[in-house]
């Protein structure tokens, strides 16, 4: 691994890594049963430098912003490297957003260049909102069919300069990436992450989960996500490890990839982990009675022998039938993006597959705490990573309060949002909006959120105010969307729901017709953004002088209602 303390920027560290590990495999790309590509670090450099040169020739300068909207694949990382090499700022966007949302963020970020895939560009290029982002002057599109209409874009594969690009150094305090944590409705929240944020986070994470040549990371979480960017790109690259991309994320191909590529690490969101648990459990339940008893006994033995620490070699021998389908080399499943239920974590640990659960926020540079597995604890999100100061603000009698974090990994602020930034970072401490408590062993336990926000099991952050547009014009006096846990705190990290608070017109009643109208509008939202129910409130919503709804005050009023009777499921 490179000594990152010597480096000022992501670009400088990656540049040296490509030379130091030139003969090692860095990328494998597979589509179903076909391996499409296998690149060494030298190959990677040979692909990336002509792209960097062409961008430089096209006038892309130090500090310019370039956005990537792509599924996980080798060209994502090659493009990102080219941007860092030229001293650019990367804006990784979620390919699952709608074209309108993507254009909104492209506009907000001020990106000059967009690098995307043809199928995504097909939808982006015809969206009316395209013209709202004139700042995007160059679009590069990968994998476009031969005679495709590129709608003003250029082919990524042909966008190559000749000669060597000029490396542009950056300092640790310069912005490396603008990462949108959430918020595509009213106020996009673009976290400005510095080079230092990433360098420090990488040192902390790799101290617990080391990468090295020969280690293979299966990249499933979208690379625009802070976790995959770190453990599926920067982390493995500065250690000479390899990243495996799958172009088809069907469960059967993901399963096959574990053994085919002898995967060492993988990151998953809780939803996928739970699905994996369900599949394994079903397989165990199908075993004939005798074998099932024997298997349970082996699991119990493994649990006893790994109580104080994981013993991978032993677990692999003891529970061979479980470990073989995972390729026999899997060290840890990293789970992130949302809260994972303790029983799921325990299920895997008992099988000898440690799950590195932790807690983090994009604003904090990914992870704040991680379970160090010494010993494994399913009931907490682990201890603060090295370099992280974590405290509980205004704890109640039972020690629960808001989690605040201070470290070199905290973002420098939200892009163009000084007000939001000063609310989020107070005297150098990032106020997370999550409620937590430390136990006697120094492990952090979480107890729900203080913010009007939900985080889905797929790791999506949803700010209720961002989805209100779909209910505009609803025939009621006024409405407002909330996270139910914001109104009625449950001290739980699961079962979060969105609700629509309605104030009806005088004399109006909540009819089946109105319910259907709400339901139809709800269907227009992506499935994970949909509201679950309605709460009726029969007074005027409290508003500011400029007539904006005072959400906090309204939430306090709604909290006086009994949740069980007030919440009307859709």
């Amino acid at each position: 691994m490179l000594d990152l303390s010597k480096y000022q920027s992501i670009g400088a560290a990656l540049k040296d890594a490509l030379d130091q590990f030139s003969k090692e495999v860095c990328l494998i790309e597979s589509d179903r049963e076909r391996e499409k590509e296998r690149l060494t670090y030298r190959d990677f450099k040979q692909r990336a430098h002509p792209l960097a040169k062409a961008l430089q020739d096209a006038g892309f300068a130090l500090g310019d912003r370039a956005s990537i909207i792509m599924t996980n694949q080798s060209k994502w990382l090659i493009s990102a490297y080219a941007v860092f090499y030229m001293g650019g700022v990367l804006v990784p966007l979620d390919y699952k957003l709608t074209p309108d949302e993507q254009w909104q963020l492209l506009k907000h970020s001020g990106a000059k260049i967009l690098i995307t895939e043809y199928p995504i560009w097909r939808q982006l290029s015809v969206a009316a909102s395209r013209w709202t982002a004139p700042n995007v002057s160059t679009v590069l599109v990968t994998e476009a069919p031969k005679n495709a209409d590129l709608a003003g874009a250029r082919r990524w594969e042909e966008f190559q300069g000749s000669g060597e690009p000029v490396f542009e150094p950056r300092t640790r305090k310069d912005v490396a990436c603008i990462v949108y944590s959430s918020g595509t409705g009213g106020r996009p929240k673009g976290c400005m992450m510095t080079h230092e944020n990433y360098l420090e986070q990488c040192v902390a994470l790799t101290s617990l989960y080391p990468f090295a040549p020969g280690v293979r990371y299966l990249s499933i979480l979208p690379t625009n996500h802070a976790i995959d960017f770190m453990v599926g790109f920067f982390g493995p690259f500065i250690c000479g490890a390899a990243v495996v991309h799958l172009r088809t994320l069907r469960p059967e191909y993901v399963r096959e990839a574990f053994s085919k590529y002898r995967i060492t690490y993988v990151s998953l969101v809780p939803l996928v982990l739970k699905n994996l648990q369900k599949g394994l459990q079903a397989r165990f339940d199908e075993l004939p009675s005798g074998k099932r008893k024997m298997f349970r006994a082996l699991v119990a033995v493994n649990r006893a022998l790994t109580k104080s620490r994981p013993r991978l070699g032993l677990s692999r021998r003891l529970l061979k039938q479980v470990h073989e389908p995972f390729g026999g080399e899997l060290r840890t499943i990293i789970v992130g993006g949302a809260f994972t239920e303790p029983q799921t974590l325990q299920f895997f640990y008992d099988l000898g597959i440690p799950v590195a659960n932790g807690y983090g926020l994009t604003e904090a540079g990914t992870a704040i705490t991680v379970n160090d597995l010494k010993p494994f604890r399913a009931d907490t999100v682990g201890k603060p990573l090295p370099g992280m100061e974590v405290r509980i603000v205004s704890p109640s009698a039972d020690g629960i309060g808001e989690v605040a974090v201070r470290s070199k990994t905290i973002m420098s602020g939200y892009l163009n949002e000084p007000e939001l930034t000063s609310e989020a970072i107070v005297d150098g401490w990032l106020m997370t909006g999550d409620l937590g408590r430390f136990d006697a062993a120094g492990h952090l336990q979480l107890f729900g959120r203080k913010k009007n926000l939900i985080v889905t099991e797929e790791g999506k952050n949803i700010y209720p105010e961002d989805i209100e547009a779909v209910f505009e014009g609803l025939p009621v006096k006024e409405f407002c969307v909330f996270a139910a846990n914001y109104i009625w705190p449950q001290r739980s990290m699961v079962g979060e729901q969105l609700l629509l608070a309605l104030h009806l017109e005088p004399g109006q009643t909540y009819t089946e017709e109105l319910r259907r109208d709400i339901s139809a509008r709800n269907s227009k939202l992506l499935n994970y953004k949909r509201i679950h129910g309605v709460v009726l409130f029969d007074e005027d919503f409290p508003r500011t002088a400029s007539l904006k709804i005072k959400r906090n005050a309204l939430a306090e009023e709604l909290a006086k209602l009994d949740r069980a009777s007030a919440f009307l499921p859709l």
Partner: protein
Amino acid sequence: MRTLEQTTQEVLDLASKHFNVPAGSLVPEDDFFKKLGIDSLQTLEMLSRLENHFGIELPDYEVQGVSDFRTLASRIQSRL
């Protein structure tokens, strides 16, 4: 060669069988996430079944953002 209507009907039949929903209770306009109560992973499983049935490969990007049976059927139709 199937018509789009035939393809759509086969998609509906297969989905109702796979998720144990009464035949005839699904219509092309239905949002399959909502009507079948499935998540994104279960959708991927359904896509694999559809691929096997129609003998095609449906890249993930082709079905990105698709949530109703009619659009799904038209994406399948374009690859038959």
